[in-house]
Every structure is written in structure tokens, then in C-alpha cells.
């Protein structure tokens, strides 16, 4: 005899998770998207027991704190670039204060995980923001340079060219032409 089953993956996971958390007397709130808010500190013995038990069901606790911190660094960098009141703040000071770690620690960790340095990442994100402003706003390059705290248009253009290999105006031409072709289709 055969029986046929249909199951909902999310319900299964949630149910297993709930049973295990309750079994270990852990106060929790399931936030969805693979995130559980633990409301009290769990002793490490309980945490390792929980980890073992969940593993049997193919559920892994991601304990990669480093990846989480890297994401926080990235978020802080983007916030910094996009906030006019923060453009004059020194990034190393800002990140160290915001994330409560020394800049040296953050910087090493970041390079290990992302294959690039914080400095290069900031430049990349600034240039990405400049690109976004070039294609989506009426701001002139001078205004964009000012908004991103470059000392001059020349400085922005040079850094743009260093990062992308093309000039801001070539970038603008290419994107405009692509759009023209796309609308013709």
C-alpha cells in the first residue's frame, strides 16, 4: 500500500522549532524569515543541546556572528553616505562608535569576509550612489560632488574613473542610450 502526502515546509519547521524551544523552557518569539528572538539568555549547555536536536531535523543555528557584524558595518556605511549630516564625520570614528568595536577589529573582520577593505567599500558605495543620482535625478555633477562631500567635481570624476574605468559622462551616455533602445522595443 502506498499513501501520498503533501506537506508545508514552513509549518513543519515552525512546529519543530516551537516544540524544541518549549521543551528547553526558552522564552521566544518567532520573527519569521529564519529569525527567532530569544527573550532571555540561554545557558550554553542548553544552546548546544538545542543545536544538536535541531540538527536532526536539518535545521541549523547560524552562529556566524561575524557575518551579522559585517552586515551591520555595511548598513552603517550606507547610512553614513546617504545622510547629509554625516558626510563630514570621519568614517573610522563613526563606525567604531556606532558598532562599539575598535576600528582595527572591524576593519580586519570586514576584509576577511568581504574580500575588500572598508575604505574601498565606502568608495564603491559612494560611486554607486553617484551613479544612482546621475541616472535618476536632475542634479548636475557639481551638485552630486557636493552632496557626496567631494572637494570638487574633478575629485569625484577621478574617483569615478578609478573605480569603474569610465568617466561619469560616458556612464550617463551609456545608460541613456540603453534606455532609448529599451523604450523602442
Amino acid at each position, binding site marked *: 500500500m502506498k499513501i501520498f502526502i503533501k506537506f508545508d515546509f514552513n509549518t513543519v519547521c515552525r512546529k519543530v522549532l516551537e516544540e524544541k524551544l518549549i521543551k528547553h523552557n526558552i522564552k521566544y518569539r518567532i520573527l519569521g524569515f529564519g529569525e527567532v528572538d530569544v527573550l532571555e539568555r540561554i545557558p550554553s549547555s542548553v544552546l548546544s543541546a538545542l543545536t544538536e536536536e535541531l540538527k536532526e531535523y536539518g535545521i541549523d543555528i547560524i552562529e556566524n556572528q561575524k557575518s551579522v557584524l559585517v552586515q551591520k558595518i555595511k548598513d552603517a556605511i550606507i547610512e553614513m553616505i546617504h545622510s547629509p549630516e554625516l558626510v563630514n564625520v570621519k568614517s573610522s570614528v563613526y563606525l567604531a562608535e556606532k558598532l562599539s568595536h575598535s576600528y582595527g577589529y572591524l576593519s580586519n573582520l570586514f576584509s576577511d569576509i568581504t574580500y575588500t577593505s572598508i575604505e574601498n567599500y565606502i568608495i564603491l558605495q559612494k560611486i554607486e550612489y553617484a551613479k*544612482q543620482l546621475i541616472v535618476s535625478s536632475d542634479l548636475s555633477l557639481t551638485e552630486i560632488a557636493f552632496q557626496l562631500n567631494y572637494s570638487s567635481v574633478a575629485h569625484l570624476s577621478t574617483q569615478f574613473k578609478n573605480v*569603474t*574605468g*569610465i568617466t561619469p559622462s560616458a556612464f550617463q*551616455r*551609456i545608460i541613456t542610450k540603453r534606455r532609448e*533602445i529599451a523604450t523602442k522595443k
Partner: protein
Amino acid sequence: MDKDYIHIILADDDEDDRMLFTDAFEEMKINTKVNTFNDGVELMDYLNNPNAVLPNVLFLDLNMPKKNGIECLNEIKKDDRFNDIAIAIFSTSSSEEHIEETFVLGANIYIKKPSDFTTLKKVLSDVVTINWQYYTSGLNRDNFLLRL
């Protein structure tokens, strides 16, 4: 979702170039998986298979017999299935006009073929590192233009 390597494909008719390319990636910090094809027809046959594992970055040599890099680029750009692939063009030309045209057609990266191995390694490493940032930081691919 969270995979720990970058999948790379190269289409190039020159056997030596294919070998140098594969060697360059073996020495890199970022984990990569590299597949090569001998010409544009072979490449498109692979990509057009609905079950094909699509690469993160596709390197196209401009001058290939049967089907050249630009013809491949045009075909790839017509199919939404390939929207997430970053396309890099290998060319021997450095004419500004030609470069802009290639970008307009939808290439993300334009590489003047380096003549020595050290430069090749550096260039490929730059491509993969920047692509990695696009991939992991959710940057807008429409604005991804890189000339090396």
C-alpha cells in the same frame, strides 16, 4: 542562496587563453568554479538548456568562429532568464567608441585582453571582487559598468 563560490564561464576559441584563464582563478582567494567553452555556439547550446546551471559571471571573447561575442551578448540580452548574469567582454580593441557600444548592448564589464599573466590575474581578481560586492550587497546591476 548562500553559496560559497562564484560560478564563472568563459567562451574563448584559443586553447592557451582558456588555460591561462583557468589557472588565474585557481590562485585566487575567492572560491570559484570555472567552466569553459570553445566557441559561441557551444556556449549558447549550454545556456539555452533550461536545466543549465547559470553562471554569476560570463566572460566572452569578442572574436570567435561560428558565433562571436557580440552575437552571444545580443542573444543573452534578449532572454530574461539571463538577467542576473554579469557579462564581461574580452577584446583586443581599446577604441572608446567601440567600448561604449559594447556597454550599450548590455555588457557589464569590458576588458582589454592583458598580454601577461600577472595583469590577467589582477584584472580577473578585480572583476570577481567587485562582482562579489554587487552580489552580496544587493547593488543595482543596471548600473554595473566596469572597464579594465
